[in-house]
């Protein structure tokens, strides 16, 4: 069947034909014998589909509400863990910052030696030992 005819038949099935299309439908039904049969079959399919009334299993509402409760409990637990981690991270960051400030204050430097407390150390060789005496 031609696409245009198919579209007309579907529109007829859906009662969406305008006046021009209604005339076109008449022509199609007269010119194509199988068109009326097709339209009739489409109607049957449409009516069959109207009786499609499936449902979910028993206790569906309860299952949804239970899942929601589980989700909110999970979110609360996640939130608690997140807040704890945030508090720990902030405390650790503050401690590191204080340590760095102390090092800068003591050593006037943020070099690796300064951080390790080795900034003022001199090597233990002969020249340095003589210089101390």
């Amino acid at each position, binding site marked *: 069947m031609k696409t245009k005819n198919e579209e007309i038949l579907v529109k007829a099935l859906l009662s969406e034909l305008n006046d021009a299309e209604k005339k076109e439908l008449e022509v199609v039904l007269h010119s194509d014998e199988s068109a009326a049969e097709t339209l009739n079959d489409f109607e049957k399919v449409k009516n069959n*589909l109207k009786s499609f009334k*499936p449902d*979910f299993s028993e206790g569906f509402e309860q299952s949804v509400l239970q899942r929601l409760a589980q989700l909110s409990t999970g979110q609360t637990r996640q939130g608690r863990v997140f807040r704890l981690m945030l508090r720990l991270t902030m405390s650790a960051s503050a401690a590191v910052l204080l340590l760095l400030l102390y090092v800068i204050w003591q050593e006037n430097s943020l070099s690796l030696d300064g951080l390790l407390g080795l900034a003022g150390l001199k090597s233990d060789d002969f020249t340095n030992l003589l210089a101390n005496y």
Partner: protein
Amino acid sequence: MEQYKQADEALLVQLVKQGEEAALAELIRRYRRMVARVVIGMLGNTPEADDVGQETFIRFWNSIETYRHDAKVSTFLTRIAINLSINELKRRNRRSEWVGVLHENERNLINNNEIDAFEQSDEQERITKALAEIEPDHRQVVILRLVEGYSTKETAQMLEVPLGTVLSRLSRALEKLRTAMNKLEEA
């Protein structure tokens, strides 16, 4: 839940926005069959259909802030249900590829014993099986336009396709459904 039995939809939505679970329970009671038609129509009467149905209402609950009052709750839920069903079909296809059941489309999954796990009448089973015979793209048009009764324009808007596409998909789908239903009737 009884307290909201007579409540109008706008009030129920407002209460759901405030986190009132009893209002959601009432909306589930009102729309579960509609969601079931969409989801079971798309996926068949399988255990996943129940999960997708539940997920539809959970998504509704979680995205209620984005709900605009100019759309009906039923339309909002239908959109969610259709999208989740399509995602489930994609997952199903990936899964069947993964387990090596290549080239076996979801039709076979729906037609197998999973259906028997859920009691349904012969008529319902026949329609479910016939729907499984058509492409998911075509199936969603049939469900929205012929089962749910949305207009062609609304169906096109919901699926974000042109009007002509809805009509042509419907035409193809009706042809296949006609053949499938006749075959099932004879069997």
